[in-house]
């Protein structure tokens, strides 16, 4: 299948690959997807005292579109407040990467990953936890 140039660029030069220490108080971790479905995304956000996401990291097991979607959202969430990050929609991701219809689920997964990471951060800080939390895969 033909990928868009942006997917190939993110796939070949993924931004912000890696992991933060998830026990660090400033970190929120979201893990979504399942190996059986062919994709798992782990997205981590580093939130400063002003509640701004100042850095992000991802690791993704999945197809090129899944990797590109997660790489893209690590760029997008940086500098955003938690509330702003939660407004990122899968349609924006799919549009930016020109994902074909069969790959839309990759963008949905990326949106879920952001929500799961934000939810994790809020939970650990006793902030309000939205309903998306149940989508987050339990870890270990």
């Amino acid at each position, binding site marked *: *299948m033909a*990928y868009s140039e942006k997917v190939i660029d993110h*796939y070949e030069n*993924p931004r912000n*690959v890696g*992991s933060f220490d998830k026990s660090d108080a400033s970190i929120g971790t979201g*893990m*979504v*997807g*399942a*190996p*059986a*479905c*062919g*994709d*798992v*995304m*782990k997205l981590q956000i580093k939130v400063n005292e002003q509640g701004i996401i100042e850095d992000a990291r991802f*690791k*993704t*097991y*999945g*197809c*090129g579109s*899944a*990797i590109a979607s997660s790489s893209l959202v690590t760029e997008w969430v940086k500098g955003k407040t938690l509330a702003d990050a939660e407004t990122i929609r899968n349609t924006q991701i799919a549009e930016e990467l020109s994902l074909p*219809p*069969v790959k839309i*689920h990759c963008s*949905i*997964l990326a949106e*879920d990953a952001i929500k799961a990471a934000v939810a994790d951060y809020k939970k650990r800080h006793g902030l309000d936890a939205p309903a998306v939390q*149940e*989508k*987050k*895969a*339990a*870890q*270990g």
Partner: protein
Amino acid sequence: MKFPIYLDYSATTPVDPRVAEKMIPYLTEQFGNPASRSHAFGWRTEEAVEDARAQVGALVNCEGKDIIWTSGATESINLALKGAAEFYKTKGKHLITVKTEHKATLDTCRELERRGFEVTYLEVQPDGLLDLNQLESAFRPDTILVSVMFVNNEIGVIQDIAAIGEMCRKRGVLFHVDAAQATGKCPIDLQALKVDLMSFSAHKTYGPKGVGALYIRRKPRVRLEAQIHGGGHERGFRSGTLATHQIVGMGEAFRLAKAEMTAESERIGALRDRLFAGVQRIEEVFVNGSLERRVPHNLNVSFNFVEGESLIMAVKDIAVSSGSACTSASLEPSYVLRALGRSDELAHSSIRFTLGRFTTAEEVDYTIRHLETKVEKLRQMSPLWEMHKDGIDLNTVQWAAH
């Protein structure tokens, strides 16, 4: 070296230049209709068609008369299964096949089920081979046909066709074998095998696409209901003007296969072993299917914790195929690998390498280096690899399926 390196010979093969050379005159000069009995144009092409028929027969040790031409293995399989089922339906309505068969067989069986037949789909063992005891207990008094592939297209394992043939013949049950992936790769002796119908393809054996053949046993005689009508060509089994150039190509391709199989299998087998040895240097690599009962040109391995489609995208210098059907809308991993009992993750992470006549040692060595680098890169990016390295058993994780 030319890039990408072609390691997908089970998908299709290039036409051998020697084959192409034989075909060309039958497009321009020798264009006669082999069915034209009234002039030399027809006589010459009829002779070419009959020579090719004998060449195909020679590879599998049967007479040319036992072979009829089709458009490919898919058509052969359709004719064999539907034709036999329709002809023998008063005798019984039960067929037996295997879950790891090619879609040409499985989809034809589904169609027969819609027409009122009953089909048993046998499981395979973890090595991909059929458990003959299971087959034994699947026979019913109304079983009319068993269909088993000689060599599996994904994992290259060779079924015990001789033993299955004995079991079928003893019961008077017809036995069809899909041999599309077997010709030129393992010896086939139709005098020894108790096979009634066998399907062949040209383009998997360095012949052209668009032509195939079906072996139909004459002693004991096998009857089929024709599926294509219009002139009664090919003993009434398959009407339609014969594609002389394609048929000549298939004949020459099978002649070369017979002449060169022994030496070629040895050379390709050595390259495959070289590839396997290289791939094994990578951690968490698993072979899919039996290594012992396997054609020499196939290696199907799973790279754990790496998703197949992204791996294929990463190894863009080599042309291979993935067991993951992630490119289709279904997101289903390979049904063949699932049938072996492979986990979804391993099925998603598989790559089929199929080597062939024009594969070189240099290409294999490049492939190994390329794989090492790309698998490492993807694993550094994989949360599953990270968890594995942290000692987490992924089976204990509660995943959110989507």
